[in-house]
């Protein structure tokens, strides 16, 4: 079954899907919505990066991480640290007892910038860190676990615990991290004010283009032999191993990729929303990120993006009108996806919409042929 599904996404279909998605994100949404809503959509799309990573690691590779917030946070904090340093120039912070360091450090009696903040003065380093930090982190977690063949449920629980630890640490070490408030009041990126409407437009487009690029990478990985290997590993890990593959390396690789995707999402989140806080790292947000992928369909990279968009959109709308319904709806979504629609939106599309479209197309072709 699954196999035929995978097959049905023939390359031609993929190109069409990609063009449709690009048209929606780059043309339709910017025309339909004003900058306020568009900025919100941009925020939702940062979660689509995470969902994409989860499609690769969980959907394809069978590795369910309940700690993707860790990586989202790493990217987000790296970007936030850079922006915060830029916002904390000695002129801007002249009233502090130690000008030139972020305000929350000053409140916590720090009199000089901690060493690990120093490199974040450099934008180049920050971009490097957004990729390198999650890679290193994911590699350490992945190597420790996969080399010892810890997987499945245990992996999920341990990643969740790591997310919990990271949250406690960030909140507790507020002099270095901004604590529970997070890093707020970010203003400019290399002198460019990111709070203006025009900047928000530009950031939205940068975000979408990055997302589409990420999608291409994800699609490449999925279509490569490595992608098939991941599917094979889920079917029969031993067979892969006894075909001469070091299974753990492949798992580590895909986990790192998922981490990098999340981290890029986090960085874009910081840029578009204007702050980063531990509330995006812990257990609850990390599990919510899983539902984005699950609703979209954990095997479909396009589904991941639509899933992130739709779930977040529903959250905004529902919580505007019926705040108490939101948790019920969210809970029901988890259960429905598991029980009734294990392939999520993508599955619904494939089993209901696509046959219908195909039938119509065929009917049109037949008509033409008759003429």
């Amino acid at each position: 079954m699954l196999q035929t599904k995978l097959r049905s996404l023939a390359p031609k279909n993929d190109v069409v899907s990609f063009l449709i998605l690009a048209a929606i994100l780059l043309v339709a949404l910017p025309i339909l919505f004003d900058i306020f809503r568009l900025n919100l959509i941009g925020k939702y799309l940062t979660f689509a990066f995470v969902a994409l990573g989860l499609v690769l690691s969980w959907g394809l590779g069978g590795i369910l991480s309940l700690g993707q917030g860790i990586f989202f946070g790493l990217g987000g904090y790296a970007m936030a640290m850079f922006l915060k340093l830029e916002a904390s120039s000695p002129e801007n912070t002249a009233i502090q007892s130690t000008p030139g360091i972020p305000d929350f450090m000053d409140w916590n009696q720090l009199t000089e910038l901690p060493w690990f903040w120093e490199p974040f003065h450099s934008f180049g380093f920050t971009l490097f860190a957004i990729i390198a930090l999650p890679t290193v982190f994911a590699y350490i977690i992945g190597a420790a676990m996969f080399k010892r063949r810890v997987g499945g449920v245990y992996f999920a629980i341990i990643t969740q615990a790591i997310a919990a630890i990271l949250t406690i640490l960030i909140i507790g070490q507020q002099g270095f991290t901004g604590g529970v408030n997070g890093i707020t009041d970010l203003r400019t990126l290399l002198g460019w004010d990111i709070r203006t409407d025009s900047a928000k437009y530009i950031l939205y487009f940068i975000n979408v283009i990055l997302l589409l690029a990420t999608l291409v990478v994800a699609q490449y990985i999925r279509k490569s032999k490595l992608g098939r290997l991941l599917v094979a590993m889920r079917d029969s890990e031993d067979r892969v191993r006894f075909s001469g593959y070091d299974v753990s390396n492949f798992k580590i690789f895909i986990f790192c990729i998922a981490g990098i995707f999340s981290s890029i999402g986090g960085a874009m989140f910081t840029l578009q929303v204007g702050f980063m806080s531990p509330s995006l790292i812990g257990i609850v947000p990390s599990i919510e990120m899983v539902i984005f992928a699950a609703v979209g369909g954990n095997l479909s990279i396009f589904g991941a993006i639509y899933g992130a968009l739709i779930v977040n959109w529903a959250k905004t709308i529902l919580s505007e009108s019926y705040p108490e319904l939101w948790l019920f709806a969210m809970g029901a979504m988890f259960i429905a996806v598991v029980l009734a629609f294990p392939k999520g939106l993508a599955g619904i599309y494939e089993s209901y919409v696509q046959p219908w479209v195909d039938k119509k197309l065929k009917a049109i072709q037949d008509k033409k042929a008759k003429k």
Partner: protein
Amino acid sequence: MKKTISPSRPGTTRRTLLKGLAAIPAAMLLATSAYASDVNSTGLAVTDDTVTVGILHSATGTMAISETGSIQAEKLAIEQINASGGVLGRQIKYIQEDGASDWPTFAEKAKKLLVKDKVAAIMGCWTSASRKAVLPVMEQYNGMLFYPTFYEGLEQSPNVIYTGQEATQQILKGIDWAKKTKGAKKFFLLGSDYIWPRTSNKIARKHIEKLGLKVVGEEYYPLGHTQFNSVINKIKLKRPDVIFTTVVGGSNVAFYKQLNAAGIDLTKEKPLVLTLSVTEDEILGIGGENVEGLYASMKYFQSLPNDNNQAFVKAFKKRWGDDIVIGDVTQAAYLGPWLWKAAVEKAGSFDIDKIRKTLPGIELTTAPEGYVKVHPNHHLWSKSRIGHAKKDGQFDVVYESKELIEPNPFPKGYQ
């Protein structure tokens, strides 16, 4: 997309109230009000007979526990203002948004209220984290936020009015009192691990040391922590005269129950426990029997005997039910709409820039806590009080500062 500017969830009681208000002859309102364009040059949601404000708190999530009281107080104030003729002759409508205990959501909703709904003011936020998230939005779109919670200070925004106490207002007199009245010499500082307790304890420590007294311990536990036996043992070992606590949320329940079980009877005051974080609201969850004998240092207690407060408590109970309790933050939230009304009427305009000019110096003689006045630093002059908790969950006010305490969000010498 919802673009209406009607209250998003009017309760039935509210509906009847509105109906009643609609009966006030429009002509009478018009007689006292200037045309919308005159009082509103920046395109806020002001019509000839209405003005819209936003209420932004968590109705869901972990913080809903704390923020419910503020929502109720703000609604009550708005209804009372409407019943007394509104602001510049205009009835206040409100749009309530749910921050869902999630800081990005707070920022998003604040932006919606300012950009989409063009509200003339926002009553909202509770935690510092939500305020910090909302702050850049308020400053960018030039809104005015009335923030009710007592907090750590270290902030002063042209777009925020802080109607709760900043840390020095709440702490210094409390410690003075413990020294003078109770002869306290040794303090143990205990808090949840985040910015407010840490900042508060820092100020407390400096002040304690300035007074020549001693801090014998300082401990922090993660938010939501429920095991306090170890720290209670440490407290027993150090034998402080005062346990000075800033533990918040669910941890409170665990802390006081375990304190009690470990044989530290609060009524015996050995050591006495002085808290900044337990109001009447929290006691509902902790249970009055667990905190009997506790001292709390804040500016307002439900049991304040003055006439303003008697009327306020009565109105609040009438509106929200007899078994409701009113804590410090709830009262501060109640001040928000009234301060805003006074500032608007003094300015003769809803324009944010104009009310910003009139706000400093605005005074309320009708405040439940007594007289308050807005300081140029956007905080309120207010009194310090110490309450002594009773078994029924109410406080006896055992101390009240004679004069109003000046707010000092950036206290020199305490940083």
